[in-house]
């Protein structure tokens, strides 16, 4: 996410709930000077088809993020812990099928 150039409208990340049963999903970004304009640009751009249910816009520079390349220890609780998975343990039945 780049810094906005002098005078350029801010960048907003757009999240869309495309239909019932799904959570909001990141679909892209728009440029706008205020939240209402961001929402209306996002509406024009990302909801031209289908039956969208809801739209969020979030200023790109307010997203506080971490990524594995930069902060490896931050995600160290994910790998190397096989005991977090059911396959690590003895099956409940012969062959282990139908357990879950």
């Amino acid at each position: 996410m780049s810094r906005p150039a002098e005078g350029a409208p801010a960048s907003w990340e757009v999240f869309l709930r495309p239909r019932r049963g799904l959570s909001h999903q990141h679909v892209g970004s728009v440029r706008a000077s205020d939240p209402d304009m961001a929402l209306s640009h996002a509406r024009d751009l990302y909801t031209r088809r289908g039956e969208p249910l809801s739209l969020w816009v979030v200023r790109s520079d307010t997203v506080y993020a971490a990524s594995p390349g930069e902060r490896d220890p931050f995600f160290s609780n994910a790998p190397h812990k096989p005991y977090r998975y059911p396959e690590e343990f003895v099956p409940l039945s012969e062959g282990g099928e139908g357990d879950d």
Partner: protein
Amino acid sequence: MTGSPARAAASPGAGEEAASQARLTAEFEALLAEGETVEPRDWMPDGYRRMLIRQIAQHAHSEIIGMQPEGAWLTRAPSLHRKSVLLAKVQDEAGHGLYLYSAAETLGVDRAELLAALHRGQQRYAATFNHPALTWADTGAVAWLTDGAAVINQAPLCHTSYGPYARAMRRVCQEEAFHVRQGYDLMKALCEGTPAQKAMAQDAVDRWWLPAVALMFGPPDTEAAGGDAKTAALGAAVSRRAIAWGIKRHTNDELRQRFVDHCVPQAERLGLTLPDPGIRWNEERGHYDFGPVDWELYRGALGDDTHTARQRLAHRVAAHEDGAWVREAAAAYAARQSGADTAGTSTEAVA
């Protein structure tokens, strides 16, 4: 990438830096080899980033400049139905441009810079759109042939190695199928109409066939396609790099062949003749043969200097400048609102 031993000895940090570069490059190559996507915050070689910015920007510019030939026909559509369809299509093209500028911004550029580079003539768009759309049938031929070529070009880009580009392309491709269909439908209506309407359809195909075949797929990048050896070798080098990085997945000439194979039977169904006497089925290859493009001649005839090319860019710049007051007003409104919000917090309760 690896410094000479003498240089490394001269500056102690250089060897370490080279080793770290080599490690990052190896990680990046491994990611590509696994068929994984590269995401915005991953380390990537400068060349990869530059190639992507160049390609995505060129692509985005083509989408928004591509609105012009058809957009000019909006007020002269022959029925309300065709007008609604064309309006939806032209709006989609604007949207495609915006999806792509959004993807480009994840690479650390600002869309304002990209637009400025387009306006200065430093970044390109598909030269196909430097042809004028002379009749109503051109809107059909552009959609059927140019968008048809775009679909063939873009379908593999849905799996390009850079995540945001691939995701933007999936949205684009879903919409592009509608563009091709409505163009074909428009051509079919003309072909089933009066002899004059059919002649208008044939005339539009005569003018849009070569731009689609030649310009939508880029220069030749295999010698087999009949280009001269030097141009083909140059094109092949660029394509090899792009394919190695997973940005492209096929050569320009492979995609061009695929396009011709799609179009010939479609034209036959319409009863239209594609303006290339070299087109015939080749049983042995399992493909249609087609006449080689005379690239030298074609490029010469299509400089940036043509009347339509100047008109396209001037129109784009004028639209941008005419919109300046809207952008300024929006910024002023936003500034006043945020000022009002800060002032308001002390006196108003927030529900």
